[in-house]
């Protein structure tokens, strides 16, 4: 039996092309390092850039002659290109982490990069307060690019539009098309993000100087916090996360940015086109505000009753802020990880777990099951109950509004439910594994919900000293959660098929 190498040829060619475009990003931290006269970091990033270019061109050369034409690519290959690109770029992007000496192992570096790309925001870097400006820039750049999508970045720079581009785009967990062609959609995603980058960074820069940061530090912190908030990432340049700034307004600007960032790019585009009613009608926005309100009220009442926070300003800055940070899957923490475990109690942690699992909007920078799916599932269940109550003679077509009106048919309901079930399964397996490692059920639930939903809040389990098998599981959970399972499953399936064919041949 002959192995069909054209499949892998195509995958290698397009993965190499995406990685080559991504390689250009290494020049930014190099520029930052040179600006600070930091030759050590400049060398780390130059070495990483060279490695990235060599691997990318190697893959392109290997795939060039064996690949099928772009139009001939199947959905399967599109999904595999997306998932394979993520793996390759994670391995490459981890190099400067390891070279910096702030990572205890390459596995820890991979963990941090996957956390950045998937906009999770947990980290294992050591001595964060003393890392170079270039490495800090790299961390936040990765989370910014990961939020919009590496494939989205690559497609924006593709010379030619091809039918396969849409298959790669879907493989990265995005499905909304803003304009008829996918290259145009990718470019719009970047335009929206860059406009917000300028506005958000300026606001944070000004406020940073008002709270006592010098102009240069304030500018870099403004860029970092914007990149992290917009991408619903959760990284911050210093160990204390947003607690470093001790300022209500600085936190609030971040809060507004991460809420806006958690909305669907389709919604942003509709608002740009003047369709303001979309904000009120969109099922995801409604779902987000309803669940945020219910969960916030629950957490506020509970933590007020326990006496932990009694003043309204404390309840807002410590409870509502963290809850919205969890719900939008951002992961900025205005309390210490240990406080969740010691002060938030059973209900407080449960509410946070639910918020983290629900997550933000589909086709946004956020993670989790997504508001759209939750909205569809609830509407579907409600519709079924109505059907039963009205009897079989009455026919009623259920609809939901998401950019445009859609009929809520069985296939849509099934698709939303399948992804939700996969998230719950991944969460359950993670909780069992973490609990077996000696952590309590509540703590395990919090931490696993955080990685599965790409949130980044921690209750204290994620540390460089945790068992390696847990690190590997959490890396996989972040990866599966961000790409929404299907493309990763297809990659695994294709790998198994390749191995099986290889064994049959020899």
């Amino acid at each position, binding site marked *: 039996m002959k192995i069909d190498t054209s499949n892998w040829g195509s995958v290698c060619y397009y993965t190499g092309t995406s990685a080559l475009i991504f390689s250009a990003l290494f020049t930014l931290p190099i520029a930052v390092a040179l600006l600070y006269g*930091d*030759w*050590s970091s400049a*060398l*780390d990033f*130059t*070495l990483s*850039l*060279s*490695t990235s*270019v*060599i691997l990318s*061109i190697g893959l*392109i050369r290997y795939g060039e002659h064996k690949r099928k034409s772009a139009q001939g690519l199947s959905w399967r290959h599109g999904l595999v290109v997306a998932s394979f690109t993520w793996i390759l770029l994670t391995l490459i992007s981890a190099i400067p982490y390891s*070279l910096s000496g702030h990572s205890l192992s390459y596995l820890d570096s991979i963990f941090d990069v996957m956390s950045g790309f998937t906009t999770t925001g947990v980290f294992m870097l050591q001595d964060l*307060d*003393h*890392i*170079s*400006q270039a490495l800090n820039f790299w961390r936040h750049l990765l989370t910014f690019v990961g939020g919009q999508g590496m494939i989205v970045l690559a497609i924006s720079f593709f010379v030619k539009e091809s039918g396969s581009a849409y298959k790669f785009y879907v493989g990265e967990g995005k499905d909304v098309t803003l304009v008829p062609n996918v290259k145009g959609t990718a470019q719009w995603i970047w335009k929206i993000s860059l406009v917000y980058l300028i506005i958000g960074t300026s606001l944070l820069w000004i406020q940073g100087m008002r*709270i*006592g*940061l*010098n102009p240069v*530090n304030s500018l870099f912190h403004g860029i970092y916090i914007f990149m992290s908030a917009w991408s619903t990432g959760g990284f911050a340049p*210093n*160990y*204390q996360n947003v*607690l*470093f*700034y*001790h300022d*209500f307004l600085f936190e609030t600007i971040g809060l507004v940015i991460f809420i806006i960032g958690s909305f669907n790019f389709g919604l942003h585009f509709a608002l740009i086109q003047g369709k303001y009613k979309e904000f009120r009608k969109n099922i995801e926005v409604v779902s987000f505000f309803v669940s945020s309100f219910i969960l916030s009220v629950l957490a506020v009442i509970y933590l007020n009753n326990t006496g*932990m*926070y009694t*003043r309204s*300003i*404390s*309840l*807002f*800055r*410590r409870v509502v802020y963290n809850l919205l940070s969890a719900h939008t899957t951002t992961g900025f923490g*205005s*309390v*210490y990880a*240990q*406080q969740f475990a*010691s*002060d938030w109690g059973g209900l407080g942690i449960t509410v946070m777990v639910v918020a983290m699992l629900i997550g933000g909007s589909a086709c946004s920078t956020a993670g989790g099951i997504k508001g759209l799916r939750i909205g569809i599932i609830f509407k579907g269940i409600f519709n079924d109950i109505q059907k039963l109550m009205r009897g079989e003679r009455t026919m009623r077509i259920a609809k939901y509004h998401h950019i445009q009106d859609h009929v809520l048919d069985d296939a849509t309901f099934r698709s939303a439910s399948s992804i939700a079930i996969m998230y719950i399964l991944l969460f359950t397996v993670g909780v069992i594994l973490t609990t077996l490692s000696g952590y309590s059920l509540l703590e395990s639930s919090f931490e696993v919900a955080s990685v599965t939903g790409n949130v980044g809040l921690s209750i204290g389990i994620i540390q460089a000293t945790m068992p390696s098998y847990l690190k590997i599981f959490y890396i996989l959970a972040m990866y599966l959660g961000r790409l929404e399972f299907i493309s990763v499953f297809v990659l695994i399936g294709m790998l198994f098929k390749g191995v099986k064919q290889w064994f049959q041949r020899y």
Partner: protein
Amino acid sequence: MVSTILSLLLAFQSPIISINQLILESHDYDKKTVMIEAEVILEVLERGDHAWINVNDGTNAIGVYLPIEMTEEIKVFGDYNHRGDIVLISGVFSRNCDEHGGEIDIHATSLKIVERGYVVTHEIAMWKWIVTMFGVSISSLLLMSHRRRKTKAVKREIREFL
């Protein structure tokens, strides 16, 4: 001088506590005078006649609120190029500070420099220079060859089209 004597007296009364221990046992230390020894990070954040400094003792980091004149002694702040001044701080710890929106913080009553900070030099290993130069050479050659092939392919496409 007075603050130094006070700090020394306090040192006899209450031992230095790690920041992580303070946070883990925040219920026990709430509203009590505590003493920590930690490195000052990045810079002083001035707020009128008071200021915030962030300190890290290697176990965790915390914000310290203090009168601005107390920060005058601090000269070196911790970042990539510096090990910041190590300070001995005593003050009142709050797990839910009423004045600062429920934050965990310390309102300092005294601050003493224990160890002056210094500039950190980052030595670059020779192997890093050699490997980087080698990598840059190979990747540049590959990029040039890749570009040439691309240009040829585009020209061929144009020829075929015409």
